[in-house]
C-alpha cells in the first residue's frame, strides 16, 4: 500500500497544545479542597530508626494529618517487583529487596521517606516536617562497590549474608581456549559512575478518592499508567475498575518514571482514601536527587582476545553493578550490559560474570540506555585500545568485526533482559558505518585537516564508534480505534507519552490505513479509563510494540469500513478506495460515502445489529513481538580541546541510524538530538558525586551540570533502513540510540585530539577537570 504519511516529515499534532501552554501536566491538576503533602526524608544514608515524635507537627495550624510507618501499620508493605524474577537456575542468584513506603526500622539511603505530612498548603506541610523530631542512630554506610563485598562491610540488608544482590554467569563458546589461541589479549579495568535522568519535570502525583462512588482517580507522572493502576488496586484492596490512572503530558520520562513503584506513588492515593480528600504532591528538585532513581555505576574487568589482524576471538567481562539500596528492577540493567558487551560484532566466545551489589545509595533503575551505554563503552573502548596496539585504524577494526548481513538473525547464545535468547533480528552494518564516515569527512580530516590543525598547535580529534540497541521488547501493547460520527478517528492506547511525538507518528500509521488526514486522528494515551491493557513506554518500544498494535487495529477497522461501504454503495470491496475521509468507488468518484456517515450507519438507533456482528466501526488489536528488534547506528564527532582549560568544543557531530522503517524522519531526528544531548551530559558533564558515607555532594542543578544549548552542537543525522522482519511495519526502536554510544565516542575523540599525552581513558563520565587530572597523572608516571 502506498503511504501518504508514513515516512514523511509530518509536523507534530501535539505541538500547538504544548507550545501554547494548553497541555495538561500533573502539576496543572487543581481540585477543590485539595490538600498537600511534604515528606520527612532521612539525611543519613544508613541509620536505625529509634523513635519519632510527630506531636509538634500535628499541632501546627493547617496540618491535617501526619503519617509514619507505625500509623500505616499493615499497609506499609514493600512494593511489588517490577519485572519478573530471573529464572531459577544453578548459576543464578537473586535476592529481591524492595522499598517500603515509609521507613519502618532502618534507613537504607539518604532521602528515604520517614513521615508524610498532609496540610492545607505545601508551605505549611514543609514547615511541619521540621517540627518532627526523629532519632536516627547512624550506621556505617556502604558506599564503595568493591568494599561492599568484603566480609567486614556493613550490610544494607542485615538478613542477608552479604551485600550481594545477584550473581549470574553467561557463556558463549569457550573463552578460555579463544584466549589461549589469541595473538593479543588486552586486559583493562573500566569504571562507570552515577548519573541522574534529570527530567525537566520532576515527579508528581494527585490522587482523588471519591468516597461516594468508591472510585479512585490518580494523575501520575508515570511512563506506565496501567501497571500502576493494577498495582494500586491490589495494594489498596480495590478492584481494577475502581482505579483510574492518568499519565497526562510528561516533561520527560527517561526511565525513572517507569513503573517504579515509588513510596510516594503508594502513599498519595492511600492518604486520599484515608482522608477522602484530593491529595497532591509535586517533587522538588532536591527530592529528585534523593528520591528518584539513578543509574550506571559499574566496574568492569575486561579482556579482549584478538588475532594479529584485529579479529575479535573472544571477550571476557566480569563486572560489578551498583543497584543502590533495593533491587526492584531485577537484573534488567546488568543483563542489558551483557547483551551489549559484544556490541555490533561477531564475537564467537564470550564469558561474563555479573555481581549486583547493594549499597546505601539511591536505587538504580533503567535510565535511557539502561545498561547498554556501559556495555557499549566497554566493547568500544577495548576495540580502540586493541586498534592502537595492533596499529589499526579505529574505523577499520570495526569494519573487520561487524556481524555480516548474511548472518542475521544472529543468535548471541546468551539470554537477554527478558530472560529469552538474545537474537539480533536483522541488520546491515557496513553501509551505516560508511555513510557516517563520509558525512563526518573521516578520510579528509585524518589526511589533511588534522595534520594542518596540529601544525597550527591546535588539538582537534575525531571519533567514530558504533552501537547496537536492543529495542521493542514485549510483552505486548494494544490499541482501540474508532471511526466517530464526525468522521474523525479516535485511537486509544495504553502507552503514555513523554514527548516522543506519539500523537503524530501513531496518527500517520492510522491515517494511511483509513484514508484520512493525519490531523483527524485523535490519540488518547496513558489513561486507563480509555484503554487498560498494556505495560508502558520504555525500552524504545513505543513505535515497535504500540505502533504495530495500532497498525493491526487500523487494518481491522479498514476491513469493517470496506465491508459496510460495499453493502451501502453496492460495489465490491476491491473496487473501493479510502481517501479524504470518504469511501469511493474507484473511477466513479461521485459514488461515495463519508466515514462519519458510515459510522452512524454502523450504530443505528433502530433496527438490530445482526447476530455475529458488532456495532460501530471499531476494532481493538494487540501486538506482542516474538523477541526484540535490534537497531544499529554509528556516531562520529570532531572536537577540539582547549589544552589550557581542557574544555571541549564539538565541531561536528554525525549520527547514522538504522532503526528499520522510519515512521517520521523529523520525529526520529528529534529523538536522536535529545538523546545525543543526554549522552553529552553522560560523557562530559553529569556525575553524581557521593562521598565515602554515601552522601550525595551535588544535589542541585548548580553543581550537577546538565548540558545546555551551548554545549550541544548541531547534529547531522543520516538514515539507513533495514526493516525488522518481526513486525508488519518493520520498525525498530530509536529512543535510546542518541544516548548509548556518546561516552565511548568522547573517550576516543579526546585521545585522538591529545596524542602527545598518550591518554588512555577507561572511565566515564569525564569533565574538563577530570581530563586535566588524567593528564597530570600521566605526566607524573
Amino acid at each position, binding site marked *: 500500500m502506498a503511504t501518504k504519511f508514513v515516512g514523511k516529515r509530518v509536523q507534530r499534532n501535539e505541538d500547538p497544545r504544548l507550545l501554547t501552554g494548553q497541555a495538561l501536566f500533573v502539576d496543572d491538576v487543581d481540585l477543590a479542597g485539595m490538600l498537600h503533602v511534604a515528606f520527612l526524608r532521612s*539525611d543519613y544514608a544508613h541509620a536505625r530508626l529509634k523513635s519519632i515524635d510527630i506531636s509538634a507537627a500535628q499541632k501546627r495550624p493547617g496540618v491535617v494529618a501526619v503519617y509514619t510507618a507505625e500509623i500505616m501499620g499493615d499497609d506499609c508493605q514493600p512494593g511489588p517487583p517490577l519485572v519478573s524474577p530471573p529464572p531459577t537456575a544453578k548459576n543464578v542468584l537473586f535476592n529481591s529487596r524492595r522499598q517500603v513506603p515509609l521507613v519502618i526500622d532502618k534507613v537504607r539511603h539518604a532521602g528515604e521517606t520517614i513521615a508524610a505530612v498532609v496540610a492545607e498548603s505545601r508551605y505549611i506541610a514543609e514547615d511541619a516536617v521540621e517540627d518532627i523530631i526523629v532519632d536516627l542512630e547512624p550506621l556505617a554506610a556502604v558506599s564503595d562497590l568493591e568494599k561492599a563485598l568484603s566480609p567486614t562491610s556493613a550490610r544494607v540488608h542485615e538478613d542477608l549474608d552479604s551485600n550481594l544482590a545477584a550473581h549470574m554467569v553467561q557463556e558463549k563458546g569457550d573463552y578460555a581456549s579463544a584466549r589461549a589461541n589469541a595473538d593479543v589479549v588486552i586486559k583493562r579495568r573500566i569504571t562507570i559512575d552515577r548519573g541522574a535522568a534529570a527530567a525537566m519535570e520532576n515527579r508528581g502525583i494527585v490522587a482523588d478518592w471519591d468516597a461516594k462512588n468508591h472510585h479512585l482517580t490518580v494523575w501520575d507522572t508515570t511512563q506506565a499508567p496501567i501497571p500502576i493502576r493494577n498495582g494500586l488496586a491490589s495494594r489498596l484492596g480495590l478492584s481494577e475498575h475502581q482505579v483510574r490512572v492518568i499519565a497526562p503530558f510528561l516533561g520527560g520520562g527517561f526511565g525513572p518514571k517507569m513503573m517504579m513503584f515509588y513510596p510516594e506513588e503508594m502513599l498519595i492515593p492511600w492518604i486520599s482514601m484515608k482522608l477522602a480528600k484530593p491529595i497532591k504532591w509535586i517533587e522538588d528538585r532536591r527530592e529528585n536527587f534523593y528520591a528518584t532513581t539513578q543509574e550506571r555505576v559499574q566496574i568492569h574487568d575486561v579482556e579482549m582476545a584478538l588475532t594479529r589482524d584485529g579479529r575479535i576471538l573472544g571477550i571476557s567481562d566480569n563486572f560489578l553493578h551498583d543497584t543502590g539500596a533495593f533491587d526492584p528492577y531485577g537484573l534488567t540493567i546488568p543483563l542489558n550490559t551483557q547483551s551489549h558487551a559484544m556490541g555490533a560484532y561477531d564475537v564467537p566466545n564470550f564469558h561474563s560474570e555479573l555481581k549486583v551489589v547493594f549499597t546505601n545509595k539511591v536505587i538504580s533503575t533503567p535510565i535511557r540506555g539502561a545498561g547498554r551505554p556501559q556495555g557499549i563503552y566497554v566493547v568500544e573502548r577495548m576495540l580502540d585500545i586493541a586498534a592502537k596496539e595492533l596499529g589499526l585504524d579505529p574505523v577499520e577494526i570495526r569494519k573487520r568485526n561487524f556481524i555480516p548481513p548474511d548472518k542475521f538473525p544472529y543468535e548471541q547464545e546468551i539470554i537477554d533482559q527478558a530472560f529469552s535468547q538474545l537474537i539480533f533480528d536483522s541488520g546491515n552494518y557496513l553501509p551505516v558505518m560508511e555513510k557516517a564516515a563520509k558525512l563526518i569527512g573521516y578520510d579528509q580530516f585524518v589526511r589533511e585537516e588534522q595534520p594542518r590543525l596540529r601544525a597550527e598547535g591546535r588539538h582537534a580529534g575525531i571519533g567514530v564508534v558504533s552501537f547496537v540497541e536492543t529495542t521493542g521488547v514485549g510483552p505486548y501493547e494494544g490499541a482501540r480505534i474508532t471511526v466517530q460520527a464526525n468522521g474523525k478517528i479516535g485511537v486509544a492506547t495504553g502507552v503514555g507519552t513523554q514527548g516522543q511525538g506519539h500523537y503524530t507518528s501513531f496518527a500517520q500509521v492510522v491515517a494511511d490505513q483509513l484514508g484520512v488526514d493525519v490531523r483527524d486522528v485523535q490519540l488518547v494515551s496513558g489513561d486507563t479509563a480509555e484503554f487498560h491493557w498494556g505495560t508502558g513506554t520504555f525500552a524504545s518500544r513505543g513505535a515497535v510494540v504500540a505502533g504495530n498494535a495500532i497498525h493491526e487495529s487500523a487494518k481491522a477497522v479498514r476491513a469493517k469500513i470496506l465491508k459496510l461501504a460495499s453493502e451501502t454503495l453496492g460495489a465490491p470491496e476491491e473496487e473501493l478506495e479510502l481517501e479524504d475521509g470518504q469511501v469511493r468507488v474507484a473511477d466513479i468518484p461521485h459514488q461515495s460515502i463519508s466515514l462519519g456517515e458510515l459510522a452512524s450507519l454502523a450504530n443505528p438507533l433502530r433496527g438490530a445489529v445482526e447476530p455475529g456482528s458488532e456495532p460501530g466501526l471499531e476494532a481493538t488489536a494487540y501486538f506482542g513481538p516474538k523477541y526484540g528488534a535490534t537497531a544499529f547506528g554509528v556516531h562520529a564527532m570532531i572536537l577540539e580541546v582547549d589544552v589550557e582549560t581542557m574544555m571541549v568544543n564539538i565541531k561536528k557531530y554525525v549520527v547514522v541510524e538504522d532503526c528499520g522503517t522510519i515512521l517520521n524522519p523529523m520525529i526520529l531526528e528529534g529523538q536522536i538530538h535529545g538523546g545525543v544531548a543526554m549522552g553529552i551530559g553522560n560523557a562530559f558533564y553529569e556525575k553524581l*558525586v557521593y562521598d565515602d558515607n554515601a552522601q550525595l555532594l*551535588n544535589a542541585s542543578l548548580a553543581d550537577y551540570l546538565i548540558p545546555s544549548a551551548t554545549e550541544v552542537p548541531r547534529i547531522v543525522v543520516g538514515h539507513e533502513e533495514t526493516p525488522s522482519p518481526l513486525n508488519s511495519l518493520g520498525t525498530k526502536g530509536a529512543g535510546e540510540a542518541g544516548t548509548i554510544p556518546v561516552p565511548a565516542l568522547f573517550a576516543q575523540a579526546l585521545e585522538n585530539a591529545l596524542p602527545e599525552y598518550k591518554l588512555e581513558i577507561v572511565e566515564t563520565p569525564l569533565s574538563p577537570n577530570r581530563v586535566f587530572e588524567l593528564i597530570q597523572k600521566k605526566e607524573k608516571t
Partner: protein
Amino acid sequence: MKIDGEYLFKGPREEVWEIIRDPEVLATALPGTKSLDKVGENEYRGDMNVKVGPVGGLFSGHLLVSNEVPPESLTLTVDGRGSPGFINGSGNVVLTDTGEGTTLMKYDGEVQIGGKLASVGQRLLDTASKSTIRQALDALDMALQARVAAKAEGKAVEYTPPSETQFAAAVAKDMAGQALSSRTLWIIIAIIVIIAVIAAIWISRTHGG
C-alpha cells in the same frame, strides 16, 4: 571532610586554654549560637539557629571532650544535627607555647557532613570552612588580648564580639577573593549555611570541658 590548620594567639598558653574552655566567650565568638550548656563532666550541648532560604532550622550539637592534657591538648567529638543536616566527627587541638608570649594552636580532624549542608553547600565548604575558622579564631584572639590587657591593668574586660552581620561580611569577603562567579545570592545563602556547619565543627573543637 578533613579540616586542619594552625593559628597563632597573641597571648600565653594558659590564657588561651582558659578562653577555649569558657563557653560564654566561645558563644560570643560564634554568631547564631543560642546556647552552650555543660551537661556532664566533659559533655556540652550547643544550639544554633540558622534560618536562611531553603536551609533553615535549629542545629543542635552534642560535644564530648576527651584526652584532655591541660593546657596542651584535647580531643573533641561532635554529633550535631538539625533540619539543615548533620555533622559527625572528631578532632584534636594542640596548644604549643612559642616562648615569645604567643601560643600556636594546631587543629586537625575529620568530619562527616550530610543532608542539605553536604549536598547544597559542598562546592563552598572548603573555602568557607577555612575562612570561618579564621574569623572565629580572630574573634577569640581579640577576646584573649582584651582579657590579657585587662589583667595587666587590673581593669574590667572590654571586648565587643563581632556581630552576626560583621562575621558574615568578613567571610563573604574571603569568599569573593576565591573568584567565585557572580551568583551573589547563591553564595550568600551558601555562606550562611557554611557558617552554621563550621560553627558547629568549631564549637566541637574548642568548647571543651
